[in-house]
């Protein structure tokens, strides 16, 4: 079993070494070849992840029925140890990596999408002056992300949670000389900090409740066993009842962190702005991988959330609300990447909605949607990047149309992505969305509080209609209608090079076919120890296919697509010339993103800025007081300087006078 441990270490270690090599040699030595270390390392990391997945699958399949799932950990070194930090518990933070089905799936997804995006970036970023910097950052990100899903301890999870945040910040502000990019990077970082603050508090509370931060139980050298938060004992026998209030608080705080990272209401405002970064970054970090960290966190802690009883409702409600809110905003956006960004927010909301059911079916459906979404959303972003590349950097859909002949390969692959996102049978999005709706449906018909899940179920259906509509609105506006290209593109608007379209094709295949993995995926994920807990199983079976749900969701997708086709293919000219629509209040509310930025400006930014000004004034006063004190020594200096007259007799006199003063004081004491 040692080789599994080697693989676990190798997967993050390779990108890290690539980041170090590129950072050290990129600027002077590698220059235009800076992509090689990143590409080689991340591709190798993907292969290692694939082998790891296979081994974990083999191992989990050979388990006896009714076992508690498969996991293996490898402990590298002790990062921090405080004896008796909270008697009788020691605070021990071991750098421990874990392999279980959930981690294996995340690792494969992250490294696969990363590899594809890196290949794409070779074409997309060519000629940029920060070429080496880009690949150094991306390698660092892959390291951080693989560590995030591999670590087996909440403290380290927090560390890499922040690390991916830093990478995200660096990459959003990659073109930092653009003021919007710098501001967007700052906004992303600050909004994330709010969530991360909650996360940190949540981790503290967990320490307070459990006296450990480890996921799994650890046997100490003296033979005693420290029960991990997601360890055998708690999973099998349930969490202590006395701590339920604290547990609720801890779960909600952890979820606040997830809301920040995964751009859920009310912390969703940073993600659309993050599109200022290079498009491959939008695809990799802000669509496929990093933003799903919140989903991973909740999925990882599902038994904990379930035990807290209250938290799942909050997760589901926030997820459902975000899903429909972001979908409504996406209806009217004209920036292609922003449409996709709000779509990402909406789809992440879908995932949380699914996780909120806290049944095994819901969690696996949410994770499966995360998996398929990674393919088709990365595909859509890379397709948008391809359009942007051809249009000379223009990305507003009002500036171009009818590109299907100019960019045939981008057109076809983008269509596959749109169909998958809209949830059309038999593409991957259909299966994962259907699984989510099915889980909601089940939850609405059995168990506690059915009415909440009834509401959420129909919310999900409406969102599906909206999703199909805005997706195809963007598709039709970009690729159909009269052929127009913006001035920035010049006269040679053309298809992107194959180093960019090949990744599109690969992703399109994934987006089309990944749905077939659904049953295998759900079964495999169910062998994760934390998801195979009795409490989870009791909340519902893993997979159920509902013909009625499938039919309804297909109708929803068809309705959305049909509406988009009608508006943007048939009556396109009349829509675009109709001023009445653009003036209508509903349109404006959606166009201005429900005024969230303005509301935050008014309620958060300005008050804080006012406090800041007051503090600045106080600081100014105190500063000057301090400066005044600083003048005292100089003033003394002014007094003392004239004594230095330069005359020898005076110096001698001063010495004698000094002597006399000392003798005089001596005699006066006497």
């Amino acid at each position, binding site marked *: 079993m040692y080789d599994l441990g080697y693989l676990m270490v190798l997967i993050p270690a390779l990108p890290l070494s690539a980041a170090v090599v590129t950072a050290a040699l990129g600027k002077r030595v590698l220059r235009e070849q800076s992509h090689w270390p990143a590409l080689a390392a991340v591709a190798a990391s993907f292969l290692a992840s694939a082998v790891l997945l296979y081994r974990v699958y083999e191992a989990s399949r050979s388990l006896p029925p009714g076992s508690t799932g498969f996991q293996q950990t490898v402990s590298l070194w002790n990062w921090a140890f405080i004896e008796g930090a909270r008697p009788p518990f020691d605070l021990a933070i071991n750098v421990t990596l874990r392999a279980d089905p959930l981690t294996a799936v995340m690792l494969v997804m992250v490294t696969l999408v990363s590899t594809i995006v890196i290949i794409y970036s070779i074409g997309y970023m060519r000629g940029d002056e920060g070429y080496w910097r880009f690949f150094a950052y991306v390698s660092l990100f892959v390291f951080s992300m693989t560590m995030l899903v591999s670590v087996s301890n909440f403290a380290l999870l927090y560390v890499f949670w922040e690390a991916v945040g830093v990478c995200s910040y660096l990459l959003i502000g990659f073109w930092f000389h653009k003021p919007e990019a710098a501001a967007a990077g700052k906004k992303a970082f600050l909004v994330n900090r709010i969530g991360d603050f909650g996360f940190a508090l949540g981790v503290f509370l967990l320490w307070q409740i459990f006296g450990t931060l480890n996921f799994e139980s650890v046997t100490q050298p003296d033979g005693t066993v420290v029960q991990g938060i997601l360890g055998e004992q708690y999973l099998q026998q349930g969490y202590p009842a006395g701590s339920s209030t604290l547990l609720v608080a801890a779960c909600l705080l952890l979820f606040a962190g997830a809301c920040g990272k995964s751009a859920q209401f009310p912390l969703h405002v940073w993600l659309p702005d993050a599109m200022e970064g290079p498009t491959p970054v939008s695809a990799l970090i802000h669509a496929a991988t990093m933003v799903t960290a919140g989903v991973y966190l909740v999925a990882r802690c599902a038994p904990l959330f379930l035990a807290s009883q209250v938290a799942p409702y909050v997760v589901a409600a926030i997820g459902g609300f975000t899903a429909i809110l972001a979908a409504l905003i996406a209806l009217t956006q004209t920036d292609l990447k922003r449409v996709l960004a709000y779509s990402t927010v909406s789809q992440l909301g879908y995932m949380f909605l699914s996780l909120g059911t806290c049944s095994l079916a819901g969690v696996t459906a949410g994770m499966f949607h995360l998996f398929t979404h990674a393919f088709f959303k990365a595909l859509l972003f890379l397709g948008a990047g391809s359009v942007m590349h051809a249009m000379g950097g223009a990305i507003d859909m009002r500036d171009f149309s009818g590109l299907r002949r100019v960019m045939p390969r981008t057109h076809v692959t983008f269509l596959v992505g749109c169909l998958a996102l809209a949830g059309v049978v038999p593409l991957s999005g259909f299966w994962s969305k259907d699984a989510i709706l099915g889980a909601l449906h089940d939850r609405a018909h059995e168990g506690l509080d059915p009415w909440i899940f009834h509401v959420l179920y129909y919310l999900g259906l409406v969102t599906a209609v909206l999703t199909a509509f805005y997706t195809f609105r963007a598709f039709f506006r970009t690729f159909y209608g009269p052929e127009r290209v913006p001035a920035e593109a010049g006269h040679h608007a053309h298809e992107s090079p194959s180093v960019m379209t090949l990744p599109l094709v690969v992703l399109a295949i994934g987006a089309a076919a990944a749905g077939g993995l659904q049953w295998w995926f759900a079964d495999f994920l169910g062998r994760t120890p934390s998801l195979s807990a009795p409490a989870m199983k009791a909340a519902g079976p893993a997979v159920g296919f509902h013909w009625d749900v499938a039919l309804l969701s297909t109708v929803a997708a068809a309705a959305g697509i049909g509406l988009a086709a009608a508006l943007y293919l048939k009556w396109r000219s009349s829509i675009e010339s109709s001023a009445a629509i653009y003036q209508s209040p509903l349109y404006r509310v959606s166009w201005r993103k429900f005024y969230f930025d303005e509301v935050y400006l008014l309620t958060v930014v300005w008050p804080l800025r006012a406090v800041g000004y007051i503090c600045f004034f106080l600081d100014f006063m105190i500063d000057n007081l301090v400066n005044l004190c*600083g003048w005292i*020594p*100089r003033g*003394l*200096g*002014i007094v*003392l*300087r004239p*004594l*230095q007259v*330069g005359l*020898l007799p*005076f*110096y*001698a006199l*001063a*010495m*004698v*006078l*000094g*002597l006399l003063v*000392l*003798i005089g004081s*001596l*005699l006066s*004491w*006497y």
Partner: protein
Amino acid sequence: MDPNAAYTSAAGVLQLIPEMIVVGGAVFVFVGGTFAKSKTAWSWVAAAGLAAAGLALWTQKVPGGFAGPIAVDALGYTLRWLVLLLGGVFVLALARPAAAGQAPEVTGSLLLAIAGGMIVSVSGELVLLFVALETISIPTYVLLYVGRKDSASQESAAKYFFLSILSSAVTLYGFCFLYGVTGSTHLAEIARVLQNTSVAAVADWGPLPDLALVLIFVGLAFKIAAAPFHFYAPDVYQGTTHENAMLLAVLPKVAGIAALIRVTTLAMPLAAGTGWRIALFLAVVTMTVGNMTALWQKNVRRLLAYSSIAHAGYLLIGLAAGFAATLGPQGSRPEEGLGASVFYLVVYAFSTAGAFAALAYLGSPERQVDTVAELAGLGRTRPVSAAALAVFMFSLAGVPPLAGFWGKLSLFLSALDVRSSPGLGASRQTWFIVLAVIGALNAAVAATYYLRVVATMYFLPPAKEPRAEGGGAVRTAGGLCLVAVLLIGLLLGPMLIQATQDAVQASAPVPPPKPAQQAQIDGAPPSIVR
């Protein structure tokens, strides 16, 4: 001491072999200089002489106690090594000016001054001590005089000459009173007499021991440039070369502190009550005057002159603490403050010598760096020299992890460890807390002008590129100082503090007083200080 015993013995004289080698070297240079015309060879001869002296010192054992007038103890051994190492730095720094001018005179005088410093370190007798102090002073006059051939240089030499003579006279006057009171010039005997004495004798002496202490203190305060006996320093440093200023800032200070520790704190326990008051008062005045006036200086040698005055103030903190601890209460450790002072000497000497060496290197024989403004942009034009100078400045400012930090830390801690004797109220402890606070405030103020030098080097656009023609020898001298400062700061600091304190403890001429005698010393009748 047995009065019939020989005043000096062959064994005692043999202890001085290292000093004899250095003096022999000086004689060889002086005599040879009249025959041989070479100018560069004499520095090699001097270096060889110092190396031979080092070898001789290395083979010496430290038996402890006295051999006639020679104090063969750990303190002497430590200080001799310090002077010898600094001597090496001086020889390197002065190699170029010597070769440019009157090489035999410069080199020979320098060797004599070094020998004088080494003899001060081991003097256990007043006459020997005085002669040794003059062995430093007289060659220094020569060095100042031949250093530069302009009126400013002549003026500074004259100032130093006259004021130095005045201070020597005052010191000698103090020695006379000490001899008169105790009937001996031998420090061990003096310590014995001043410790084991009856109430009647003390009443008989009146204020004379304390008067002797004041006079000796004042005379030696000139050597270490403590206020108000410091006035010569800025004028003299400014008027001479960087190399001479280095010598003046370091060697007399080492000798002065060594003599103060040997004569006043260790040998005159009876007058310790006066001693701590004078030392504390002079420390406060000196630190403050030095630092406040330094804030205004534009000439870099003048700046360092005031810096060296301020450091004399810091050095006196340890002395004051040593005096106070001599008075008790039981368990007080005089060696804590005195050892801190000795350690601070080491730190100060290498930091200051290094700063002067760097400045000397940046100039040329014809034109030396005079103002701080000339250092502008040095971080770009001369990155290595700038970095070295910055390290010395940070060390002088007491920034961790450099040597100066450990020095100030040990001094302030020794002041804070002073305890009042029972029955005398809390006043002494309070005074020392005030002293430590004033010291810390002064250190903060001092950082202003040290960091201004650093800021000038790194944040201002380059003026005109410095010549940097000081030569390889002075660069080596600066490099040695840099190694010392970094080594002490990063590695050896705490160990050296402990070592110097142990050395001082092992070198007290008489064993520490017993509690019974303690009460007598500390009580009202024997001392004039109540």
